[in-house]
């Protein structure tokens, strides 16, 4: 898949955001939501007709239909060194049909046929032409129904000669819920380009930067949702995303990258271009420092992850285990093997078992807008009122005193988790705002002392502090690779993206930067060996990739999920025993031709 395609799906899922306080008040007395709206009427009317009459001879009719219509106005601009590389803006309305045949206990879902069916999507007309809307809904529903009947018979046939060891329902039963999140807004045309130009200009005049790019994406969307069980919502969402990326090549050819990101629910939440340009420039200075820093061949011992590094570590290693993904019945044996290795989540067997030290807790709360009372930073980016199943968002305590209590779930049950936690974002469950809380946390100095103490116990003359880790989302296509390679997958033989800011710390407090390093053998189990955490926390906005390893496989739409942005509030985390090593793999050669600025 090309970078472009990934980015496009990304946009839809970015639809995070505050679904508004205007909600609720009118719901109780309003009856059906959006009766004044042609789109909602068209969705409801075609749904009612299909529930009643859509039936093939010898097959059952649908027992459930949900329509999701997304109006999206988006504006994207990519720039390099103050000059536009490309930009685009446009408006469209996309429909996704979820149609189920069978029963909640056993239906056409959670099944990947030999030639997997694709989620039924269609373009709907913009505006309020009721008849034109109905015509497209009719055709899309017809396709979805035939596909569902086909899948159900395929699935039934596949199970004919097997006994299922465990019966897990295919679809959870939930209370219907309505929500009006209409909050009209404007996209503010032209701001993406202005931002991309201003921030990318910060990298001008720096011949060390072999490559730099700024990507800006702004999106205004309205989602219309109705289902045949009575749930409905209209939600206006806005998202702005700025990513400034740069790379240097060290004298040995090693390519080093870093980035600055800003995610928000509106332009008001994004720092102004000057502020971001200043951060971008500071990032370039960090890169220059790393370029000339020594390597670290291998280190095993205590490592302190601070700030962004702690957040990315949780995002990439722990958070994917906190979502409940169902392993579907897969016809293709190769695909089945691949999927079960990726979808196998050890935490499914660890409910009520200890997965973190006792002093740590994790809470997911998409209902809060700010991390603390009196917090003046921009609103959290993982806040929403209803999820993409129409279920109300709610606070879920995932880990209490180190013990796993729940996983984030959609209406697709998995073994041991029967109902939704209101966590569907895109296709799969994703965190909203994730809070990692430490009881009896250490002060910064205490934590540092503890780190040095642990190092001394091991007779190490230094310890390691990691301040930044690469992101799956904010990456440049490496110069050593063809452009357009897959995002999301860390390289260098590690399950975590490379370390972007790691330092040797010596007993006298001196810090020495490390050029490039990766974590080795880091898994969710490693988190049990956290020995201490800081009292203070920091907030980071991240991109959650549910299953990057699966994204490249064909027919994975609806299983893989889409990347979503969310906020995390996290303390610094001290691990007792971590292996950090030099990245594996050959290095590209340094450029033969000097940078143009060096020869002017």
């Amino acid at each position, binding site marked *: 898949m090309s970078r472009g395609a990934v980015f496009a799906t990304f946009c839809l899922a970015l639809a995070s955001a505050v679904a508004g306080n205007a909600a609720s008040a009118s719901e109780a007395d309003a009856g059906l939501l959006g009766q004044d709206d042609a789109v909602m009427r068209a969705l409801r*009317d075609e749904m009612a*007709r299909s529930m009643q*009459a*859509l*039936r*093939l001879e010898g097959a059952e009719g649908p027992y459930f239909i949900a329509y999701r219509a997304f109006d999206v106005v988006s504006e994207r601009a*990519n*720039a*390099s*060194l*103050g*000059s*536009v*590389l*490309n*930009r*685009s*803006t*446009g*408006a*469209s*309305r996309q429909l996704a049909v979820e149609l189920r045949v069978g029963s909640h206990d056993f239906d056409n879902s959670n099944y990947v046929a030999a030639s997997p069916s694709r989620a039924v999507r269609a*373009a709907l*007309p*913009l*505006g309020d032409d009721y*008849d*034109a*809307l109905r*015509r*497209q*809904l*009719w*055709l899309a529903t*017809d396709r979805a129904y035939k596909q569902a009947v086909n899948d159900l018979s395929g699935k039934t046939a596949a199970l004919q000669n097997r006994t299922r060891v465990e019966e897990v329902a295919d679809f959870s039963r939930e209370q219907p819920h309505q929500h009006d999140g209409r909050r009209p807004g404007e996209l503010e045309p032209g701001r993406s380009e202005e931002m991309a130009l201003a921030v990318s200009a910060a990298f*001008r*005049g*720096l*011949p*060390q930067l072999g*490559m730099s790019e700024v990507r800006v994406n702004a999106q205004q969307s309205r989602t219309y949702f109705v289902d045949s069980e009575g749930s409905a919502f209209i939600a206006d969402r806005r998202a702005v995303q700025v990513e400034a990326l740069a790379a240097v090549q060290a*004298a040995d050819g090693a390519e080093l990258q870093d980035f600055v990101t800003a995610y928000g629910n509106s332009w008001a939440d994004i720092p102004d271009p000057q502020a971001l340009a200043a951060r971008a420039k500071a990032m370039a200075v960090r890169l*220059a*420092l790393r370029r*000339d*820093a020594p390597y670290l061949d291998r280190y095993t011992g205590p490592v302190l992850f601070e700030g962004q590094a702690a957040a990315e570590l949780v995002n990439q290693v722990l958070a994917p285990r906190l979502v409940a993904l169902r392993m579907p019945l897969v016809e293709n044996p190769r695909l089945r093997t691949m999927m079960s290795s990726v979808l196998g989540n050890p935490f499914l067997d660890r409910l009520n078992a200890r997965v973190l030290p006792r002093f740590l807790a994790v809470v997911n709360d998409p209902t809060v807008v700010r991390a603390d009372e009196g917090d003046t930073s921009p609103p959290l980016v993982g806040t929403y009122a209803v999820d993409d199943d129409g279920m109300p968002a709610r606070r879920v305590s995932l880990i209490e005193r180190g013990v796993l209590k729940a996983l984030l779930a959609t209406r697709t049950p998995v073994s041991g988790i029967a109902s939704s936690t209101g966590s569907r974002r895109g296709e799969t469950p994703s965190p909203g705002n994730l809070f990692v809380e430490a009881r009896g946390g250490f002060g910064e100095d205490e934590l540092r002392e503890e780190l040095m103490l642990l190092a001394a116990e091991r007779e190490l003359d230094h310890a390691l502090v990691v301040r930044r880790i690469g992101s799956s989302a904010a990456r440049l296509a490496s*110069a050593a690779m*063809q*452009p357009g390679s897959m995002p999301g997958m860390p390289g260098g033989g590690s399950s975590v993206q490379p370390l972007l800011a790691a330092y040797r710390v010596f007993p006298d407090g001196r810090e020495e930067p490390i050029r490039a390093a990766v974590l080795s053998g880091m898994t969710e189990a490693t988190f049990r060996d956290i020995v201490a955490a800081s009292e203070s926390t920091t907030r980071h906005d991240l991109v959650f990739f549910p299953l990057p390893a699966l994204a490249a496989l064909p027919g994975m739409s609806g299983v893989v999920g889409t990347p979503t942005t969310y906020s995390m509030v996290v303390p610094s985390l001290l691990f007792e025993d971590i292996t950090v090593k030099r990245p594996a793999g050959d290095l*590209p050669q340094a*450029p*033969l*031709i*000097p*940078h*143009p*600025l*060096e*020869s*002017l």
Partner: protein
Amino acid sequence: MTLGGRHPNVRRGALPMRCSVASATLALVLAASVAEADTLATMESELARSLDVLAEQPDPVYFLSYEITEDKVVSVYGSFGAVGGWNESEQRGLDIDLRVGSPQLDNTHELRRGGAPPRQRVRMQAPVSDEEALRATLWRWTDHQYKQASERFTQVKADVQVTVAAEDQTGDFSGHGAERATEEPVSLEVDRAAWEAKVRKYTAPFRASPHVLSANALVWADAETRWYVNSEGSAIRTANTFYRISVSASTRADDGMVLPRSEQFFALSPDGLPPDEEVMAAVHGMVAELEGLRTAPIVEPYTGPAILSGPASGVFFHEILGHRLEGHRQKSVREGQTFRRMVGQAVLPETFSVFFDPTIPNIAGADLVGSYRFDNEGVRARRVPVIENGVLKGFLMGRMPIEGFPESNGHGRKNTGFRTVARQSNLFVDVSEKHTKSELKAMLLEAVEREGKPFGLFFDRIQGGFTFTGRMVPNTFNVTPTVVYLIHPDGSEELVRGADLIGTPLTTFSQIVAGGDELAVFNGTCGAESGLVPVAAVSPAILVAQIEVQKKAAPQGRLPILPPPGFAADGAGR
């Protein structure tokens, strides 16, 4: 090693030795910030700077070109009388042709061992509005391309050593004189509200028919600017606009066969687009034809005489002749090379001539989208006669020479991101003995009677076609018609469905009999190794003594279960 004649104006500053900034501080170099960079001059000077280094490497670079293609695109689309969305975008693709070795043998040489290489698209982008940004981009990608090229050149040398001597001993590249041209920039004339009105208007008539399952319209425009420089001293800026209106709709027969119809209008300026009345006349024709097609009988596989309408004939020549005259196919060991040894021989009736001419932008009031002034290798466009009075004269040539044809004739084309090969431009079929429509029909009926056939065929409208030119597969073509009529011996015509026109090139060519007196234009987009390129075919209707039709692939899906909303189950309106 040749380095081509560089243009004297190219600035060639003295280069310092490999610069390395050892300290951890940032070396800040102030570059002139140019609001509107002189893109060509920047490209030329960066090209010269790169060559200074790369021509001195162990695998020296002997040719280098940069091409930046900027596309500013606007589109509005919709269906069934409503607007579905719109898009405005701009992007700038960068292409680098970097050659190490020598014109006789370089890194682009075909590797004869192993399977055909996958068609790869390398997407590089370049900013053009700023000198520093453009220089930095060209620098980075030139270095990247050089490393790839020298790696491949090593493979090429090994491949040449272990394979038998090539049949065609010509080299890999032909030089060309410097070309300088600067065309004025172009911009698009877009009134989005007016386009939205068009999209609604063009698709609304389909609403009345319960059997139409898709009805889409697109209004689209592209302003394309290309900057090209090379180490032979060429510096070219060209500017084009393309406008397109497309209306497509489909229905399904009761047996599940999908029956599509589409009308495409291409133009090189907004004035070239048809007025609404003309589009609406086509739309109403489509509505009626779809209704007719839905219940039309199916043609069984058949061989016999047929008339191909002008557009059908244009596509027919494009597929069976045009693709086989693309120069590089005469050399590749994976190609069928149908016509390679037939130069000087008669391949068509004496009354038929065929030429390609990208320099003709318009004929009989219709714009031709395969027109251009320079190809993608900096070679000036020109007319290329390929068949004169039935005799094969030559091939379409890019810069890769083939036996007997050492030079380019301005047909090195590609879409940005692909490697250039010889491609078609505007194809013209020229018939010296012209027959009226009724004469052609009379000739067809005579043939039907002579051969005792139950009927003849008239291929009226077509969607497009495809052909296989490789050696590993049968060398066939397929032209996919959408509207076909049976012509019964009594002269009556009957609409039929489900026929694809197929054949093999030499047999089919020997069956072409006569041509008509009215030229028709088919504008389209052709896809091959070097991506999608706009092409046109201009041809009169032709009579073919024997063609073959095969059954169209038919998806086995059922018709929609419910009637369309607002219609009763029997299809009656509300």
